[in-house]
């Protein structure tokens, strides 16, 4: 066990798995010599050499495209996209190939690869550095999309992702890279992909969120508890495929549903969860399933971002409304 923050846990996990499995290779812009702009890959090139951890030219499509080729040729590539907002140039590779190679070849060419990227906002960064790709990636059949909310989860989920035979997009909430430390076991453990985690049992309302917002929701929960509202709180952990069962079970119990996410509201990930809840718990619903989400605008530059991202107060206000409906 060691105390680690989220970025530290990711660095440790990459190190751990590169040490265990020599087919794991790590690459991307500035990941080699510098160890990544967020230091996720620091020390790996020194330890495993420039053949297994290396800098690439600036070309996201080629980063993902070469990962496809490496995966087919027996490696387990873990590619870094420097920020999720720079994944767009790689969308053709991600959608047209990463997600489809297996289906296209009737299972002949598996792609055991991981694409890691800092995700979400609230870090007072430049334009395009605060993007949420949940829907854009979640909608693509063939991808698994995963996002941890704690250092412990980061290790367990990332190990599962690297060992998975399907391609996994690993979204790292950059806002909480260094937000807090947690005991993380140094040995082997995995957390299954595709399973949500009930963080807190409750009876009055089911609240689903993921990534950095998990911690804000937990704060909101404190406010609500003081008012006697007992929310059930779920960390989605895997955005796709969604763990519908856990959510539906919960809503069947609580009768109320709130989903909270950073991405813009319209056509956002919350819509999918609401549709699922309608399909699986319609007769249990005592209030309209509700989204607390980003406005349908481009994420503002730093001076305006506090209006866009929800804080615990605004979350509590939104949840309260649903409970009082």
């Amino acid at each position: 066990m060691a105390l680690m923050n989220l970025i530290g846990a990711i660095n440790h996990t990459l190190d751990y798995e590169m040490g265990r499995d020599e087919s794991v290779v790590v690459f991307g812009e500035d990941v080699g010599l510098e160890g990544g702009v967020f230091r996720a890959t620091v020390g790996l090139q020194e330890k495993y050499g420039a053949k297994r951890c290396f800098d690439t030219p600036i070309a996201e499509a080629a980063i993902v495209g070469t990962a496809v080729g490496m995966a087919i040729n027996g490696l387990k590539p873990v590619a870094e996209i420097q920020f999720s907002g720079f994944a767009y140039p790689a969308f053709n590779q991600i959608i047209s190939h990463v997600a489809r190679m297996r289906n296209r070849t009737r299972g002949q060419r598996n792609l055991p690869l991981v694409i890691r990227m800092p995700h979400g906002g609230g870090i007072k960064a430049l334009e395009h550095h605060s993007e949420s790709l949940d829907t854009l990636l979640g909608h693509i059949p063939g991808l698994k999309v995963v996002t941890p909310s704690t250092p412990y989860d980061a290790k367990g989920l990332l190990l599962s992702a690297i060992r998975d035979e399907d391609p996994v997009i690993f979204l790292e909430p950059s806002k909480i890279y260094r937000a807090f430390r947690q005991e993380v076991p140094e040995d082997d453990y995995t957390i299954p992909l595709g399973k949500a985690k009930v963080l807190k049992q409750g009876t009055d309302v089911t609240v689903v969120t993921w990534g950095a917002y998990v911690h804000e929701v937990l704060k909101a929960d404190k406010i609500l508890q003081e008012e006697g509202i007992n929310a059930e709180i779920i960390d989605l952990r895997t955005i796709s495929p969604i763990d519908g069962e856990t959510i539906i079970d919960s809503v069947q119990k609580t009768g109320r549903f709130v989903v909270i996410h950073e991405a813009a509201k319209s056509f956002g990930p919350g819509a999918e969860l609401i549709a699922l809840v309608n399909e699986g718990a319609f007769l249990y619903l005592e209030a309209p399933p509700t989204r607390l989400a980003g406005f349908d605008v481009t994420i503002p530059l730093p001076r305006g971002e506090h209006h866009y991202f929800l804080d615990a107060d605004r979350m509590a206000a939104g949840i309260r409304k649903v409970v009082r409906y």
Partner: protein
Amino acid sequence: MLVEQYGPLKGQMLQIMDETGFIVQPDLVPDLSDEEWLELYKTMLRTRTADMKALQLQRQGRMLTYAPNTGQEAAQVGSAAAMEKNDWHVPAFRELGAWLHRGVPLETVYLYWYGNEYGSKFPEGVKNLPIAVPIGSQLAHGVGLAMASNIKGERDVTVAYIGDGGTSIGDFSEALNFAGVFEAPIVFIIQNNQYAISVARHKQTKAETLVQKAVAAGIPGILVDGNDLMAMYAATKDAIDRARQGGGPTLIEAYTYRLGAHTTSDDPTKYREDSEVEKWKPKDPIKRMKAYLISRGVWSEEQDEAFQEEYGEYALEVFRKVEAEGEPKVEDLFKYTYKEMPAHIREQYEEYLEYLEGKVE
């Protein structure tokens, strides 16, 4: 090294055999026996014959959209023939000759154009990637394969294809640049057939040659008469050998011509003159290789016709099998999205089966 003489900026095109089948550069003729050349020629002929058959079947409404290869057989077979079996082959989508040489069954190819995903699954040991429809996107895969060979310390080389039109898309430059930076053992083959659907080569780029695009990535390149089997073989072999010895990537421009339509969906008379096509017909790669083999006494017109007839019948038979078995099973739709079928897809599958059963009742 051929690149020294025919490099990207030399303004020279490598030709070993001229349009009449005459060897113009005897010292460059690759070291293959007449029988070996004949075998490659036969693959070219199979390609042409299977192509014709596919077009015929398409006109009958039995085959779907089909992209013919007529005129490009030497560029395809010559380059593939220079590969070892264990090398990786990365096609664009118009590489029938290469597929047949590499051991992709004609049935698989027909199945693809018939519209069934099993047309992209190859027999064990055939190290080919499937067709990549999004132009240019396959080259990075090729570079990745080659980088992996390097990383693993293996000696396999990758050969990857693209069209003249494909050189305009960013993926092309990114792939060449990566290959250069990582000294990837890969050979890029541009099949410059002078057209991208309706758009003529000179409208794709102001560059005088396509091979000069190698300069941007700082890698060697060579311009080759793509209708000359020997030149294509020689240039590719040279590049593969260099790659295998750690010399990194090479770009080859195979200067050829698409004698037919882009696909069965288009009508080339809308955008090019017949006279242009007529000018290219005498350069036909099959014609010249046939003349050569006949001159060497290992082939005859009669054999040629018989071979085509026989293979044509074979192709038809293969297609009949595809027609008989080429409909996918319902489960095929759902089974391959993930390694394990997730709950939501299973639900959709079962619901659909239920619906189908209900319909039958």
